[in-house]
């Protein structure tokens, strides 16, 4: 599988990152099988979080076996020093590792959170101390919040080395500044920050729960994913063609193998075909009267 530099970390990440939340939906035996499969495909970057149920614990056995083959990303939703330190220690214990390669602020959503984490008593201070102690190697941030806020974070966190954010043709087709993750990508690239794409396989929201109850959704993702090999190939090629360092696999284990196959066969997508994908989702999503044209 192709690899790309992850910003200034020195890590060459495979263009597919394994989103280890998928392990949460599997028994230990199945989780072990999945990790082996992912490694068979050459994937060398894993991402996990304490917020993903049992995923950390289920990753631990195989992580112990293959630690040196895996660049391990983890994250915390805590915003203050003590909370972040506590969660980091908990993750180290659950994952049963000495070091986490990339530790990320998880799910930045509001302006006040950015103030909190950058404060002297904030989570980033805990991250930096942990880095000095060798408990973590690099600092990152994840968000599917306002792109403008993410750009502010780039400006305000000098030692930020990776960013995880949504990128897919549905979002690329929208004009509002609240969808402008392309600008985030551009800014991150200019600052030599590694970029990890999430929601690459999202098709749209689930139908309202009175039409489709949550427990009857066919996939564990909180959005409705594309789920055929052809669609997944297109979505992967689109995301990886935007220049992301790596594309994170989706949360439902049923989709992971198709994404690994897509990543193995990645081909840069030509611009007219990228626009075709953008057009398709635009028409699917917001039909206006009598759409004969593109």
């Amino acid at each position, binding site marked *: 599988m192709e690899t790309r530099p992850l910003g200034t970390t020195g890590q060459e990440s495979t263009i597919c990152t394994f989103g280890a939340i998928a392990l949460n939906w599997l028994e230990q035996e199945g989780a072990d099988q999945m990790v082996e499969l992912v490694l068979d495909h050459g994937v060398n970057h894993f991402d996990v979080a304490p917020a993903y149920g049992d995923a950390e614990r289920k990753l631990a056995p195989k992580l112990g076996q293959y630690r040196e083959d895996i660049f391990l990303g983890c994250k915390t939703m805590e915003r203050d020093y003590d909370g972040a330190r506590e969660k980091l220690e908990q993750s180290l214990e659950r994952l049963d590792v000495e070091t986490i390669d990339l530790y990320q602020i998880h799910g930045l959503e509001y302006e006040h959170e950015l103030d909190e984490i950058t404060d002297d008593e904030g989570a980033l201070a805990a991250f930096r101390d942990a880095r000095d102690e060798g408990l973590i190697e690099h600092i990152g941030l994840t968000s599917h919040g306002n792109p403008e806020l993410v750009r502010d974070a780039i400006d305000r966190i000098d030692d930020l080395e990776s960013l995880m954010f949504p990128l897919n043709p549905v979002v*690329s*087709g*929208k*004009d*509002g500044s609240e969808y402008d993750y392309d600008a985030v990508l551009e800014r991150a690239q200019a600052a030599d920050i590694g970029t990890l794409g999430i929601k690459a396989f999202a098709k749209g929201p689930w139908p309202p729960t009175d039409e489709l109850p949550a427990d009857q959704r066919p996939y564990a993702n909180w959005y409705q994913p594309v789920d055929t090999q052809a669609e997944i190939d297109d979505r992967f090629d689109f995301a990886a063609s935007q220049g992301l360092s790596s594309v994170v696999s989706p949360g439902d284990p049923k989709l992971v193998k198709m994404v690994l196959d897509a990543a193995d066969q990645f081909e840069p997508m*030509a*611009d*007219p*075909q*990228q*626009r*075709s*994908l*953008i*057009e*398709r989702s*635009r*028409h*699917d999503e917001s*039909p*206006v*009267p*009598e*759409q*004969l*044209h*593109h």
Partner: protein
Amino acid sequence: MDVPATVRTALADQPVEGKRCLEAGAGVGNMTAGLLDGGPAAVYAITDDREHAQTVRDRVEGGRVAVFEADLRSMPLRAETIDVVTAHGLFNVVPPPDAERIVSELTRVAAPGAHLVVDDYSPLGEHPIRELFAVENALMELARGEPALTFYAADHLQSLFEGHGWSLERRKTLLDPVPWTESHVQAHLDVAREVAADLPTGTAAPLVERAENLAADIGSVDAGEMYSLAFVR
């Protein structure tokens, strides 16, 4: 309103800012939105379809757009007044006998040095959706004596405009493949049904049935290319 990627790409190299622009065949207003986004002095959006005119008015707000219901073969605009002319997905709904008259009229209103963008679909190869369009065309020919759709090759439109003094600046591919989604297929089926209402049942019914079966089989399909030609006068 969001400007489609096709429109953005077609206009990326066009000088719209501060210019007087004409969208010939406004459709649902996609190109009008794109022109407006470029900061023009004015946009004239012309369509002969009342519903489309209303849709465009509803979708774009502000003082810089004038939506006209008018015939492109004879437009209520003065000669040599427009700086940027666009025909985005127009010619495929122009029957061949009208094409020359529309090109001539677009040329008349264009100022010296004007820019022109013509975006349309290449003729389709062997795809099931071509058959749906063929049935739609058959119904339209029978009812109104002209086809609903004509996919002009880029070379053909290029020659037509060059014959009126335009010079080709560039050719781009906007979409390859073209995604004909379920909403497109449904819209074309709706046109077929609407036209069929003007025909004797014995003539129309088998064709409508064929169109319905085709639409059901097709669902959505990727087929063909959408191109963009840019000219200068």
